[in-house]
């Protein structure tokens, strides 16, 4: 599992990658009340703003951490954004992406490095 400085996590599952936001991010944001996810089948580039989230406090954008094609989105999260607060690393995932170049993930942090960053 890899982590970005923007508090996203990336978990490879076979040839796709599941993406969500970390518990630290959800604690900072507060309760999520709205999530807008990209369209399945869309091609996205690293750093494109592809997700909009709104918490009780403010709106934030989530960027694509890598280039690729969106192959699945978490429809349940759209109906119940609180899932991201309750289970950020599990049921609160955002989207699954098929990487155009999996080596783009190499530069991201492992869990120990991420934990060190947020401390």
């Amino acid at each position, binding site marked *: 599992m890899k982590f970005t400085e923007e508090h996203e996590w990336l978990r490879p599952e076979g040839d796709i990658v599941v993406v969500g936001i970390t518990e630290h991010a959800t604690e900072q944001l*507060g*309760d999520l*009340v*709205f999530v807008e996810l990209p369209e399945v089948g869309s091609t996205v580039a690293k750093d494109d703003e592809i997700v909009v989230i709104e918490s*009780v406090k*403010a709106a934030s954008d989530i960027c694509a951490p890598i280039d690729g094609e969106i192959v699945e989105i978490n429809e349940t999260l759209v109906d119940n954004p609180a899932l991201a607060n309750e289970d950020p690393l599990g049921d609160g995932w955002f989207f699954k992406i098929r990487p155009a170049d999996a080596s783009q993930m190499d530069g991201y942090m492992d869990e120990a490095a991420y934990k060190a960053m947020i401390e």
Partner: protein
Amino acid sequence: MDERQGVKVSDLSRTPLYDLHVELGAKMVPFAGYEMPVQYKLGVMKEHLHTRDKAGLFDVSHMGQVIVTGTDYAAAAAALETLIPVNIAGLGENRQRYGLFTTPEGGISDDLMLTNRGDHVFLVVNAACKEADIAHLKTLEPAVTVTPITDRALIALQGPASEEVLAALDPKAADMAFMDVATLTLDGAECWVSRSGYTGEDGYEISVPEAAAEALARKLLAHDAVEPIGLGARDSLRLEAGLCLYGHDIDTETTPAEAALSWAIQTVRRIGGAREGGFPGDETILAQLETGAGKTRVGLRPEGRAPMREGVPLFAAEEGGDPIGQITSGGFGPSVEGPVAMGYLPTELTAEGTTVFGELRGRRVPVTVTALPFVPARFKRKPAKVQQA
């Protein structure tokens, strides 16, 4: 109330409950010159729902408490009526009323609560405005004496379980009706208590000597029904209740009629009333009560789940045209389970059910004009007097 951005923590004041907030795991933020709890461990959503379901305890000690004394209540009331377009002279003893400070241009320089406490008037004003309000009040001296109360905390207990919780400390709490005021002995401390609040729920606001505030707060929190509630949920609760936030929904640029606060100006202060006018901006304000205002504050329900926040422009049509108004406060309503907002629209577009459009991330989303409050108020009102035949 308005947040001051970029202030150093060292410049901020702390309320008598600061240590308790930290102990309870609050996230502290700068607000109106104070370090205040924005949320506790439950988080904004659960704190909001808990308040509507049971009871929440709020620290509102940052608000200004002021006593105005004259030769008697009538003298203090008469002086205050020159600044506030409200029937203060006719307010019953131990009763509370909502009021406004108006500007010579007809705008609103703050909103406040006024209480007849027998021989004086007790005022609660917004934190961000209190210095200006006190200076404004002091223009009434020497006819009256204006005394800021700086040695008392202010806490609010809000929600349907509030009566049971407070009556356990002083049974007289149960005898109070909405907007009644009493001096109660709570945990040994002399408290000035009103049955009112800022959530749309039944509840109390309690002015307590600062030395006794933490012990009283702990006593209230020890009750199973009570959780500490931060400013985040305070904002979503008041928004669902349709109550104005000064500096956002109302300010010096909005008049009482525009703000849909005409109800706050009683007949006796209006044109033809026994004490007509005699307050700043009276000509503009009273004329507007008769003829109506060009724009009006309304409740708004955006379609879908995305919150529309302060500053979102409103349009008459899905495409083209200039903005016709804007949202002045908005967010997600946990009890409504959807986005709720308030804003100003041209009065001809303020009929309930009218659809306008709010621009969110470049898209125009339908917004429906909705009656306020978004959730029914649950005050314990005095039973109406039965008419004698």
